[in-house]
């Protein structure tokens, strides 16, 4: 039996679409709920980010509970930055008991880049070890080898960076994540099909599902900012230049156009198993991207 609805979809052969929502900084969850409602029936699963970019927010687990409540399929993003093994295990037990059975196991960004640079970074374990730990919990034992009364079960995802400027060490880690038990990958932002093609030539030998990360850029300035400041993001020069051609105020439309083109390209070439759309603050435009790229309607005029 599949561990989750999303795991079932992973083996369905269908082109998968996931997206992500970022919880609020504070207790006002109205916008988060609005985004969940907007997206839950349009995608195969919704990731909830875990203090993305090391900025303190409402927790991923809380967001996943909301996704469940609203009838969506959540993917719990779990980083090792803020919790040691005990805390991670406890959150996994809670997640399982509340019907959250998809986890994206991540190491997490450094605290230095976020809004609490003075806190103690934990990193008791990292992504590969987290995946193994989840599999250990599933076997009925905790990380210290003690018996559990009731074992959780998870469909485990991980991250990989096809566009890394030095790919070999990343590929070694990718294989270690697979050996540890990762079933699917949501990649870091992909901005050109060539790098994804190269990556898939290598990755397709493994029995895992790959969802290409699509970051929707809203302007050339944002792309440059991300290149400078966001770990691992490499927006190619051509993409920055294309964004720069957008008229004032039309940057996001250009970004949508680029995302739609990428997703269509991926589907046409059957490059990988799906896409993971990251709209970074512009969640409202995700349905439009899906309509134009996946549902194959003719784009309405004026776009």
């Amino acid at each position: 039996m599949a561990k989750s609805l999303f795991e079932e979809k992973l083996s369905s052969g269908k082109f998968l679409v996931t997206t992500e929502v970022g919880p609020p900084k504070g207790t006002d969850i109205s916008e988060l709920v609005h985004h969940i409602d907007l997206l839950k029936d349009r995608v195969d699963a919704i990731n909830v980010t875990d203090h993305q970019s090391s900025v303190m927010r409402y927790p991923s687990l809380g967001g996943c509970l909301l996704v469940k409540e609203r009838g969506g399929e959540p993917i719990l993003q779990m980083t090792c930055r803020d919790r040691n093994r005990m805390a991670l295990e406890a959150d996994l037990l809670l997640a399982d008991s509340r019907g959250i059975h998809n986890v994206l196991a991540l190491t997490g960004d450094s605290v230095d880049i976020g809004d609490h640079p003075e806190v103690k970074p934990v990193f008791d374990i990292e992504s590969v070890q987290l995946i193994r730990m989840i599999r250990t919990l599933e076997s009925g034992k905790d990380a210290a080898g003690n018996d559990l009364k009731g074992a959780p079960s998870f469909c485990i995802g991980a991250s990989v960076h096809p566009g890394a400027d030095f790919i070999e060490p990343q590929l070694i880690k990718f294989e270690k994540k697979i050996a540890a038990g990762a079933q699917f990958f949501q990649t870091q932002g992909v901005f050109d099909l060539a790098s994804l093609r190269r990556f898939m030539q290598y990755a397709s030998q493994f029995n895992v599902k790959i969802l290409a990360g699509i970051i929707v850029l809203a302007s050339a300035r944002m792309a440059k900012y991300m290149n400078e400041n966001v770990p691992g993001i490499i927006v190619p020069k051509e993409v920055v230049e294309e964004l720069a051609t957008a008229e004032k105020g039309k940057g996001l439309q250009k970004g949508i156009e680029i995302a739609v083109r990428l997703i269509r390209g991926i589907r046409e070439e059957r490059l990988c198993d799906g896409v993971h759309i990251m709209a970074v603050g512009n969640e409202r435009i995700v349905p439009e991207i899906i309509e134009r790229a996946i549902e194959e309607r003719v784009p309405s005029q004026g776009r």
Partner: protein
Amino acid sequence: MIVAEQKPVDEIERMIVPYERVLILGCGTCVTVCNAGGEREVSFLREALQLAAAKNAGESHVFSEYTVKRQCDEEFLDPIAPQVETVDAVLSLGCGVGVQSLAARFPDTVVLPGVNTSFLGMAQEVGIWDERCTACGDCRLDETAGICPITRCTKGILNGPCAGTKNGKCEVNKEMDCAWILIYRRLERLGQLDKMRRYYPPRNYRPIPRPRRIRAFAKLAPVGGNHG
């Protein structure tokens, strides 16, 4: 060696306000090499503090200076006992170990830290020291080509680089090499990339609870438990 950095003079000034007679005590070992607390720094600091005290009318200090070979060794502290007895406070330019060693040796004297003890490291070039060892108590340098990921990777992770690395540099500092890229390149050069493909389990933090103690003879002469 232990690398330290002298505290800002104004911080030291505030620290010594209550004490009239202050002995500025240097250390002739690590902090001398890293230009933080040797004989030369003691004398510069004395001049700086005297100048500052002169500006602040009403504040009077009597400074004396001395540098011992090693503050962390009691045998080098015994000879300065008479001098210490004549002052209100000792401003130590030794590392944190030196400060505590003085405090233990002179229970009736106030001891103040004049440097921030930073790390275990080495000189990279003149005037630049880099951290190399965390003293984690569980050395794995055989597995990582002699480059320590626990110290030199900002996350201290064990199974390869995170995805934040760009141009071989770290996500938190564009000037700082990514330890895992260095490890990869050196393992490749040594023909030992299989070491990077291995899975490394989570660290055992049990050797690390503080404070740690090493008994030199414990392993040479085991007591009891002869399973032969």
